[in-house]
């Protein structure tokens, strides 16, 4: 019996491709975000509202991750932005090489902002770096106010929290103050937005912040 020392990161292959993606984004001055949430929190609706607000003023490209369908890419394509669907066929998260392959479909010269919508899942995507500048976590009020405590890794690894479906607050046992406090306890540096895709509340604030960030990368 002999022992062979290995000492290698399990996800080193993914991390290496993520590094290449990041390099590509830097070369093309693209601000890339990785949007994560549980299923049904409203990632695609938020994306639609954001694109509506941009109204073609920002060079956006979208990568949609989905387990089975291309429904999301069809929804996004209506806004006249280049969109590529990655169907993971059961896979619970996007990996860097999937994003790398999807990028071949875009003319990156006109892209300033790349929005990657991950598969709806608050566990698995937190381990897989895609090369993004930051993760944006969407938590909806219907999920309750304890989500950040149940999925600390995702909230810790994200830079922005969007609390969505705030229009439903009067009908729910969700305390938005508690939700905020729980999230900030896990990650005090989170930037928090409150939105409703139904009423449009908070969308302008979030979209303008995103534009400012994308512009500062491109400057």
């Amino acid at each position, binding site marked *: *019996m*002999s*022992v*062979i*020392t*290995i*000492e*290698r*990161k*399990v*996800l*080193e*292959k*993914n991390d290496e491709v993520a590094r290449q993606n990041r390099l590509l984004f830097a070369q093309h001055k693209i601000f890339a975000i990785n949007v994560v949430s549980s299923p049904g929190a409203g990632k695609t609706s938020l994306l639609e509202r954001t694109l509506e607000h941009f109204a073609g003023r920002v060079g956006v490209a979208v990568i949609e991750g989905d387990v089975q369908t291309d429904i999301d890419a069809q929804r996004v394509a209506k806004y006249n932005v280049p969109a590529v669907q990655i169907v993971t066929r059961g*896979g*619970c*998260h996007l*990996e860097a090489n999937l994003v790398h392959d999807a990028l071949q479909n875009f003319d990156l010269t006109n892209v300033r902002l790349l929005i990657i919508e991950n598969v709806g899942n608050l*566990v*698995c995507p*937190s*381990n*897989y770096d895609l090369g993004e500048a930051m993760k944006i976590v969407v938590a909806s009020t219907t999920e309750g106010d304890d989500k950040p*405590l149940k999925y*600390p*890794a995702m909230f*810790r690894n994200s830079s922005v929290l969007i609390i969505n479906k705030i229009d439903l607050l009067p009908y729910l046992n969700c305390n938005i103050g508690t939700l905020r406090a729980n999230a*900030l*306890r*896990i*990650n*005090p540096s989170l930037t928090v937005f409150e939105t409703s895709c139904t009423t449009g509340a908070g969308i302008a604030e979030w979209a303008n912040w995103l534009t400012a960030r994308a512009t500062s990368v491109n400057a």
Partner: protein
Amino acid sequence: MHELSVAQSIVDIVLQHLPKEDHVAVKSVGLRLGEMAGIVPDSLEFCFSAITQGTPLEGAALEIEHVPLTAHCNDCGVDGNIEPTLFACPSCGGRSLAILSGREMQVKDIEVEESEGIR
């Protein structure tokens, strides 16, 4: 449930370290797993044993070293264990923490033995 793809990555790494000429069987794989790595050990072990059938890793034990979540408190300077649901300094309750450990997911080493018969 990304344990399957994690198990596959572990197998890929181990296979790269096996001696080319000799017929060896992997007896155990040492893994370092952080408390906040987002991995369910039982699920990982199940996936690992399923995908290693018919490979030199068949029957190998997954020996997991669990690494606790620890952090340095920027407020009081203490290093300590952090409760993942509290995320506060165990000493002063401070919230400004720099994580020291707890996210690890590394293949440490393997134990191999020459397989019987074929030589």
